[in-house]
């Protein structure tokens, strides 16, 4: 075990790294904007070109904040799920959150023909997709929760989550079959995930819901550490399993649900970040892991976004392609180097 002092230094290094990545992310993009102008627009002074100011303040800045929320939120919810199910393969979406969200979005986009023109205006608004995704993931989660109250075994919940995911996937494929080309295109674009299309207003709502999820996660640290010992042992220590299970599931659904609603189903991050953190910090104590996952998740997401923007070229790549492309080799390398997994 490394001493607390080493952790302090590590946290300090990570925090500095996060700040650096944040500013690097803002100063890089398809359009070359000199650092001086980036700084000027952040401090509210005049930039050499008016359009640069708009790009920094209304496009890059919200994108960077979104990256932090998405990276940290998915990392934390992945950690919660891996601990709850004591399964290294669990991620934020094992409870069918993303499949529920995709069902909601598919219903609204592909099934728009079913709703008639009354909903036409609503369908065209950005909120429709967000609301549909939230409702969809909430419905699936609610179903999983109800069953989880009936089921004693946590592993059974995992299977139930997977079953619900299969059900939603089949409904989505039926909807896709009847969707028009434009609708399919819209749905597939949603599936790519994106960080760069949130306005400040949407970001505010996103952050509020995210904060609730984060607070509940922090509140669950103690029970998470107890759960590591196994459910029976945790019970003998006086932990109310059902209640802490509920809290953990609610925290995950708030975090992963809003992220999926606003940014689409971002793959890989939620599964990989907790492993990366455990391997580097060499601990399974959630007091250390949770803030570390927060920092790592944010840093990795900012780096992935910077890469996906392919600085100074007109090209952009879908964020989902980058996260796994960059992340998977890192995890493989870490596991091979350490020869065993810390879990």
């Amino acid at each position, binding site marked *: 075990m490394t001493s607390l002092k080493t952790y302090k230094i590590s946290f300090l290094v990570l925090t500095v790294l996060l700040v650096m990545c944040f500013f690097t992310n803002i100063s890089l*993009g*398809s*359009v070359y904007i000199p650092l001086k102008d980036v700084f000027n627009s952040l401090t509210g002074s005049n930039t050499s*070109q008016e*359009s*640069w100011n*708009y*790009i920094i303040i*209304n*496009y*890059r800045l919200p*994108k960077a904040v979104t990256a932090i929320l998405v990276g940290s939120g998915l990392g934390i919810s992945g950690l919660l799920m891996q601990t709850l199910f004591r399964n290294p393969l669990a991620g934020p979406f094992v409870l069918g959150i993303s499949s529920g969200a995709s069902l909601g979005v598919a219903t609204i986009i592909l099934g728009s023909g079913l709703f008639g023109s009354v909903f036409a*205006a609503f369908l*065209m*608004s*950005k909120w429709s997709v967000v609301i549909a995704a939230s409702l969809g993931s909430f419905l699936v989660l609610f179903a999983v929760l109800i069953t989880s109250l009936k089921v004693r075994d946590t592993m059974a919940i995992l299977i139930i989550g997977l079953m619900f995911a299969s059900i939603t996937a089949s409904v989505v494929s039926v909807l896709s*079959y009847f969707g028009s080309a*434009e609708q399919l*295109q*819209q749905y597939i*674009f*949603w599936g*790519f995930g*994106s*960080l*760069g*299309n949130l*306005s400040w207003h949407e970001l505010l709502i996103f952050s509020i819901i995210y904060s609730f999820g984060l607070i509940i996660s922090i509140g669950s640290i103690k029970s998470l550490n107890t759960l590591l010992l196994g459910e029976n042992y945790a019970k003998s220590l006086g932990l109310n399993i059902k209640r802490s299970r509920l809290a953990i599931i609610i925290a995950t659904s708030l975090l992963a649900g809003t992220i999926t609603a606003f940014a*689409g189903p971002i793959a890989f991050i939620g599964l990989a970040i907790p492993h990366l953190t455990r391997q580097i910090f060499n601990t399974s104590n959630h007091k250390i892991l949770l803030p570390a996952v927060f920092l790592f998740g944010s840093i990795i997401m900012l780096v992935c976004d910077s890469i996906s*923007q392919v600085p100074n070229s*007109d*090209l*952009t790549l879908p964020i989902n392609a980058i996260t796994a492309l960059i992340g998977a080799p890192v995890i493989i390398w870490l596991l091979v180097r350490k020869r065993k997994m810390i879990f």
Partner: protein
Amino acid sequence: MKKTILIVLFFITLIACKKNTKPVEISNQTVTEIPLNYAKGFSISATNQYKILTISNPWPNADKVYKYALVEDSILPKIALNRNEFDGIVTLPINKIVVTSTTHLPGLELLNAENTLVGFPGTDFISSEKIRALVDSGNIRELGKNEGINTEVLLATQPEVVVGFGIDGKNKSLETIKKSGIPVIFNGDWVESSPLAKAEWIKFFGVLFNKEQQADSIFNRIKTDYLEAIKLAKNTQTRPTILSGAMHKDIWYLPNGTSTEAQLLEDAHINYLWSDSKGIGSLSLNFETVFAKAKDADIWLSPSNYTSLESLKNGNPHHATFKAFETKNIYSFTNTTGATGGVLYFELGMTRPDLVLKDLIKICHPELLKNYDLYFFKRLE
């Protein structure tokens, strides 16, 4: 000895029984190529007994050339065609046809052959009033979706030929139809690289319906109108700057500089800001690039499938920061639809580039074409 004779006789009989599949020699027939002006994806040639329709580019980078023999039913019993030489033998005249893309419909209608249409996948997309009436009266059956045509219904309509199209030649339902003995001809109008080349595919339907001359004169009229419109636009002093496409999520999709859309803009003598870009398919750029370049563009054309200023703004708040949005100089073809919502431009735009070009000229050079009313495009409200 007897045995030997018997065996020899037996073999002689065997040989004699073998079906003679050797085609009738057609070497004394001269094959004349019927010249085309622009289209490169198909060619028509004729012998004095039948016509040959060759499709060399049914989809991008196709590695196979498809040959079809078009034979009059009065001549068919008199000649022996080598079936292996052709991908399909079509008997003329065609009384029943199935086409699979709305872009095939104007060809039928302009040649007064719409009554031969017996089935279509996705009848709701049809805009043409004449053909819509045939759908409503039950003469044209709904065949489902192009990628999964309801084969049973199609076979029930008993078409003599199916005009299909393929993105890459892998269409299971079209394969099934082919196996049932109905010739499937791939139409590659959409692969052509210029507006007039796409329009020339009316001659493809001309040869199918024995209306080559009619198809010729229709195409020549379209061509003349198109070239005259180019001349007219060339004389203008101003070249307004153009932005096109719109954002899906945070990616902006717009036509590249070599696309047919960009050629039309060039022919209308307007300054498309991405006219120097190259490549296949559409450009996918991020918001920054488009904003920095086109923030002050004069006119915004075809903002994806958005149908109103409000939906454009709701789709992405960044859309509203462009000058063209503030001045409401946005034009789209999405609001010109048939009775059941099919977009007219997708149906007729390929066959009538002259109308598309005139629309663009009318929008960007309002001082010209005073008596012309927009055909496809409408200003977004």
